[in-house]
């Protein structure tokens, strides 16, 4: 249990009390909506988390980190992006893979594109939340809109690190 969970529980209780105090059925309608969404999300979430956990174990971290070194520049950015796309799991896995890449000598731009790609495309999130709550139509619009962001972020990071090394930082 961390701070943000306490905040969420506090909000839930405060809003529930307020809804009850209005005495116009808000409380019941709010709970009905919560149960409907909960029912939509949780069974899929159980399956997706289990699948993601297994797939995460199968990612060949050592093999990929060979292609992310400081001397590979743009290629590192593209491979970092692709690696970010295949991490189907939460921050625990993504950041431990990222840390493994870093200790194997991956460059900052490659890591930036890796973390950015994972954060935008995390497959488990798409299956657990995005498709049930918003639908395929939204998924399609969103994916096409963010497609260029990970390599762009990596490219900007490359420019930033070059500029920093030129001024001797």
């Amino acid at each position, binding site marked *: 249990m961390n701070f943000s969970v306490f905040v*969420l529980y506090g909000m839930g209780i405060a809003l529930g009390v307020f809804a009850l105090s209005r005495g116009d059925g808000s409380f*019941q309608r709010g709970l009905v909506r919560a149960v409907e969404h909960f029912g939509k999300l949780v069974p899929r979430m159980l*399956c997706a988390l289990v699948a993601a956990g297994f797939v995460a174990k199968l990612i060949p971290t050592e093999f990929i980190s060979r292609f992310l070194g400081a001397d590979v520049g743009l290629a590192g950015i593209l491979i970092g992006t692709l690696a970010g796309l295949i991490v189907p799991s939460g921050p625990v896995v993504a950041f431990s893979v990222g840390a493994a890449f*870093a200790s194997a000598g991956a460059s900052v731009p490659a890591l930036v594109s890796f973390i950015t790609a994972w954060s935008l495309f995390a497959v488990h999130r798409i299956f657990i*939340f995005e498709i049930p709550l918003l*639908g395929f139509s939204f998924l399609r619009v969103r994916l096409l809109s963010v497609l260029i962001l990970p390599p762009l972020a990596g490219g900007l990071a490359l420019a930033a690190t070059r500029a920093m090394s030129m001024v001797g930082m």
Partner: protein
Amino acid sequence: MSPGETATIHPRTGGRDWWISVLGESFGLSFWLFAAFALLAAVISYVILGPESFDDAVSENLAQLGFMLPRVAVAQVVAGFVWVLMPHDRVSQLVGPDGGRRGLVIATMAGIITPGGPASAFSLLVLIGSVGGDRGILVAYISSWAMLGLQRILVWDLPLMGVEFSVIRFLVCLPLPILAGLIARRLPLRLRLVEHPEQQDGRRS
């Protein structure tokens, strides 16, 4: 069951029909596809990684489920109450589909400070869509939360990847949600949200 009953689209909430419709949606076709995929992943990792790694993965999976379930539950309760209590027409005016850049900047800032994990962020995304936020605002908000969410940066980026990496990544990603929102507004695709399929979104053609 009479024909009149089967034609009911919204069964009385809390009644038996309502529970049946909720369960029907929860365990529909896509659930079984998910279940099949999970099973396949389990079999593949058992074959490739062997029983020991398999047991590791199982216990990690259980820990992850225990972590997520209470969060998702309470996030849905909060979202349900917010949905009911929010003055929809007044909020609509705030995020209305005016197609302005200001909306994208506000959506980006909201994504940065949204606390909690995907359960809260996606619930908020549904709310923004339901009060008429256009596709640019929706895409900018969820991209910003994903790339720039402060909570994740503080908990994960900083301790695991270091200060230099975190600062560079935050700064280079800062303008990107706005760019994604602008691209979304120009995509020649129809957008139909699950909860408001009838709503026309504010794409400028």
